[in-house]
């Protein structure tokens, strides 16, 4: 019976090509716009930590003075990070910031390149579950005793080592030799949740070096540095001793017990620092001066998804409703014109339900075609956004789930518009249209 309805629907669609085209156009444009905004919203609001969200936590401290910032700063001072790195209660932890270095290899045919580099601890790879292609992360002892070791990304390995296992080989960063200990697979989480303050949709770095080298190598900071009071910064040591914040700190907490333990450690820490004359904002209690943020909270606090985006989704849904009302009108006209045929079918023995089903299948088919066309619109718009307005491809890439979601939304939208017309037409009294033709 379903196939029979499909056949009838297809004939009916073909019979009034202009009207069908109008309806498909109306649905597809509504769907296209909705899917475009929904897609951008979805990729932006994606949580790359997935079900590890509650375990992956970053720490923020209220180290600023009275009447300065009214929010926690995502980053921390070098002093606090150093103290946290020395906290042995915390098993898995990583400080991290971005720098940029010139890179070369022994192969002189390969031109040197300037690359962003992530300076971090070896637990970074554990906390963010970074997949390795060759070798491994550097040894934990390197976080205490600096060594010139490096983990590189697949792309760099392809460029400089032709994709072969480069573990044990040497690369040069700002002319210093570093030994490759591991090569990670392509890894580019969106949003870039381990450092959302530096453009939440920027690409991940492809070079990782030990944080313990910071003091002796004095790496530039390619990220945000914020301060709340005047501090002269004549040397790198000035930066390290300052109250400026520029380092992210992450840890892996398996249980709420571990979380509580860390929270009370932080409270004690703030109390201790106050006795040294830091953490001068006494409007906050020591307990309030430390915050442990799981990934979702951190992304939200950093406005990874701009609120404009939500408004845009709302507007496009409104637009879809306008399209829906239009389609409803068109369907009503179209179906009522077919009332005589319905009268005949009813007289011959079709039940109301069967007539209703027939017309709903037609509506669903229009919706389905509209959905497919809408998907093409969305794809076109996103490509345009990427090509003409330089919007990041990670935001404009059509999420694979959209290929299922779109026809589904389209069919339900059409069905919503079609229920009333189909209901009206299925209630046609069979006797009325039989007399005259």
């Amino acid at each position, binding site marked *: *019976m379903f196939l*029979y309805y499909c056949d009838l629907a297809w*004939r*009916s669609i073909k*019979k009034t090509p202009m009207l069908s085209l109008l309806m498909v156009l109306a649905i597809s444009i509504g769907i296209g716009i909705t899917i475009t905004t929904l897609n951008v919203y979805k990729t932006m609001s994606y949580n790359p930590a997935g079900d590890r969200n509650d375990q992956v936590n970053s720490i923020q401290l209220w180290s600023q003075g009275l009447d300065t910032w009214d929010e926690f700063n995502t980053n921390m001072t070098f002093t606090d990070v150093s103290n946290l790195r020395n906290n042995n209660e915390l098993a898995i932890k990583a400080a991290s910031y971005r720098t940029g270095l010139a890179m070369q290899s022994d192969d002189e045919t390969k031109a040197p390149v300037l690359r962003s580099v992530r300076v971090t601890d070896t637990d970074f790879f554990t906390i963010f579950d970074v997949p390795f292609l060759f070798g491994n992360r550097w040894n934990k002892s390197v976080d205490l005793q600096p060594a010139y070791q490096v983990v590189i990304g697949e792309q760099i390995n392809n460029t400089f080592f032709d994709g072969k296992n480069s573990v044990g080989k040497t690369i040069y960063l700002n002319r210093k030799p570093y030994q490759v200990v591991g090569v990670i697979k392509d890894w580019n989480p969106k949003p870039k949740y381990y450092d959302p303050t530096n453009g939440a949709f920027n690409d991940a770095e492809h070079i990782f070096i030990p944080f313990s080298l910071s003091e002796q190598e004095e790496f530039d900071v390619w990220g945000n540095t914020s301060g709340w009071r005047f501090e002269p910064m004549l040397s790198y040591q000035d930066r390290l001793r300052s109250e400026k914040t520029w380092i992210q700190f992450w840890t892996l907490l398996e249980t709420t017990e571990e979380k509580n333990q860390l929270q009370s450690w932080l409270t004690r820490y703030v109390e201790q620092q106050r006795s040294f004359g830091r953490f001068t904002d006494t409007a906050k209690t020591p307990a309030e001066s430390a915050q442990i943020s799981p990934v979702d909270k951190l992304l939200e606090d950093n406005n990874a998804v701009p609120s404009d985006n939500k408004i845009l989704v709302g507007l496009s849904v409104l637009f879809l409703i306008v399209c829906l009302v239009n389609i409803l009108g068109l369907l009503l006209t179209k179906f009522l014109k077919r009332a*005589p*045929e319905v*009268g*005949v*079918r*009813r*007289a*011959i*023995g*079709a*039940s*109301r*339900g*069967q007539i209703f089903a027939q017309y709903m299948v037609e509506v669903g088919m229009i919706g389905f075609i509209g959905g497919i066309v809408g998907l093409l619109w969305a794809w076109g718009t996103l490509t345009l956004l990427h090509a003409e307005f330089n919007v990041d491809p990670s935001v404009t890439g059509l999420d694979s789930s959209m290929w299922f979601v779109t026809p589904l939304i389209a069919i339900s939208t059409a069905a919503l518009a079609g229920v009333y017309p189909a209901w009206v037409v299925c209630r046609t*009294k*069979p*006797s009325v249209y*039989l*007399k*005259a*033709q």
Partner: protein
Amino acid sequence: MLSMKNISKVFKTDLVETHALREFNLNVAEGEFVAVTGPSGSGKTTFLNIAGLLEGFTEGEYCLDGVNVSNLSDNKSAQIRNEKIGFIFQGFNLIPDLNLAENVEVPLRYRGVKSSERKRRVEAALEQVGLAARMKHLPTQLSGGQQQRVAIARALAGEPRFLLADEPTGNLDSLMARQVMELLENINQSGTTIIMVTHDAELARRAQRNIQIVDGQVCDFSMYQKADHSVVAELKKVADQKQAAELNQIVSGA
């Protein structure tokens, strides 16, 4: 087969109430061929629609095939229409987008008959009306008489026990009308009960039984028909007078 007792049907609109049928009584036996005649507006179509469960009625009792069908649900009457009743309309009422075979197949689709069985029955029905060769044609490519034969084939395909025809020859010339009539006679011979409304006295006479509907009521002349034509004429005159009187009353009343 069909038994109507004291059926009345009132159409109410904002302005007037029309008594299309009043205290309508009729029994039709299995296998009969009944021709229904009567003046325009007397209630013939209304009767046929009620008989075919296309419309409900205001009062009375209606038994079809031994089953009381006075107050059936919409679904149930659709099912009975589909299984027991075949319709032939004055306007043919074929579905213009479907070719002949597809038109004839419609009642079988709703009955859920399997594809192979459907094909067989459609071919047989079109064969019976002499149009098997034109299965793939669209209704508009046929003459009026041919279209009516397709409509008959459609009614036949469902193998109904009971065939209702409302002026099936009304739009046809007399030659075509006779062909259609012969077809209906053949169908009746194979056991199908037929009720046919017609304005054509000659065709009506060919039926086994004639009833006349006047002013929403049955005047069964069949028992007189062969005996005494003058009585029939007299009765008809009375009926016409009654109608005229009523008309007068309405006019003067208004």
